[in-house]
């Protein structure tokens, strides 16, 4: 089955431009996954053994406490959900949950790590792409830290 996924993987914005060789390696770790609205993709604190490339739908990342859960970020088509698999101690930092019916590539983290370890060129390329995503998220968090829209009573 994996070989049928490769063309679709190649189209995903996160992987766009990767060499066929690299894609072939990744394809071995990938499968299609449908999540119904409300279904969890990942749970805070558990072993981060997967990551997802969203194709359709939307996924929200939650920071949850007993009293309430707050959405800290969302990811839509073309975006990556999950990088904890590449960073020790390989545990999810948030809850990830589909807010609508979502279609994603489901990549096996352990498999990816192995491929990246075996093939540093692939590993570097993959890490660069994850880093862009990380940088974007950091910008986002920084901007929101500024609370730029301001407290209405702040004046």
């Amino acid at each position: 089955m994996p070989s049928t996924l490769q063309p679709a993987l190649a189209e995903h914005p996160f992987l766009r431009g990767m060499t066929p060789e690299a894609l072939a390696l990744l394809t071995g770790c990938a499968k299609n996954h449908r999540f119904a609205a409300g279904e969890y993709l990942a749970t805070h604190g558990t072993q981060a053994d997967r990551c997802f490339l969203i194709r359709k739908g939307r996924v929200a990342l939650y920071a949850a406490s007993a009293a309430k859960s707050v959405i800290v970020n969302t990811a839509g088509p073309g975006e990556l959900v999950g990088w904890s698999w590449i960073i020790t101690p390989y545990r999810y930092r948030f809850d990830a949950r589909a807010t609508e019916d979502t279609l994603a590539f489901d990549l096996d983290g352990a498999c990816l790590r192995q491929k990246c370890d075996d093939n540093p060129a692939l590993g570097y390329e993959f890490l660069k792409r994850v880093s862009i995503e990380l940088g974007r998220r950091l910008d986002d968090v920084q901007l929101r830290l500024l609370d730029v829209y301001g407290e209405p009573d702040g004046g």
Partner: protein
Amino acid sequence: MAVEGFVPQDGSDPMVPEPYRIVERRRETSHTVTLALSSAGEVPTRAFQPGQFSMLYAFGLGEVPISISGSTARRDRLEYTIRGVGAVSKALCETPVGAMLGVRGPFGTAWPVAGPENRDLLIVAGGIGLAPLRSVIYQVLERRSHFGNAFVLIGARTEADLLFRDEYPRWRAAGLDTRVTLDAASGSWKGSVGVVTSLFPNVEVRPNRTVAMLCGPEVMMRFAAQALRDKGLSPHDIYVSMERNMKCAVGFCGRCQYGADFICRDGPVLPFGRLEDRLVLQEV
């Protein structure tokens, strides 16, 4: 692009407000109100262009610059969406229908709505910044076929802070791709969370035919403009609406100076390309 706002032709003092009456008052959010004003004096209600602002005077309390948020088609009224942050704006928010306010203006430059046919529009609004862009949206709705793709990207602090929310379906129905993202959302929110730039990845921008109009907090506009440049937009096709302390609105008081521009007179709408050098400096 530079348009003249109201200029008294009789040489009278531009610092003297004209009397306007509140004809409609609508609460938008807990801290935001839209007032519709009509002239109560001898001069008919003044015309404006999207992006311009007026100085609104609450009797005895003072004056604040407020962007016009209504439709240019309504010649009988000027609409202002006001967020109550200071003494004057809070008082304005609480002024009832029928009461009188002093109005000076409209002043300042306008959004470049007029221009070549079939241009793509990218309207990016953060918080209260949607107010002056609504006038643009209304013009686009009237002449939708004159434009190519049209996106309205809206960032807000929370769901409760979304402005003009009941209008979005109408905008969408008329072919404006209207998207929303929040800074903070509860678990029940189904939409996007993140700053307004987080909506960009899924927006197809065609560099040579797109004009972008940005209004929101300065830091948001700076990030958004930068992200649009990364998407290939020329800094001269990105317009921002700047905010500075204003007292006179006519270039006399010097308070709103930003580099070589007085925001009241040379702005508030300015091409990003003109400001790029300054935006990277602190405390200009």
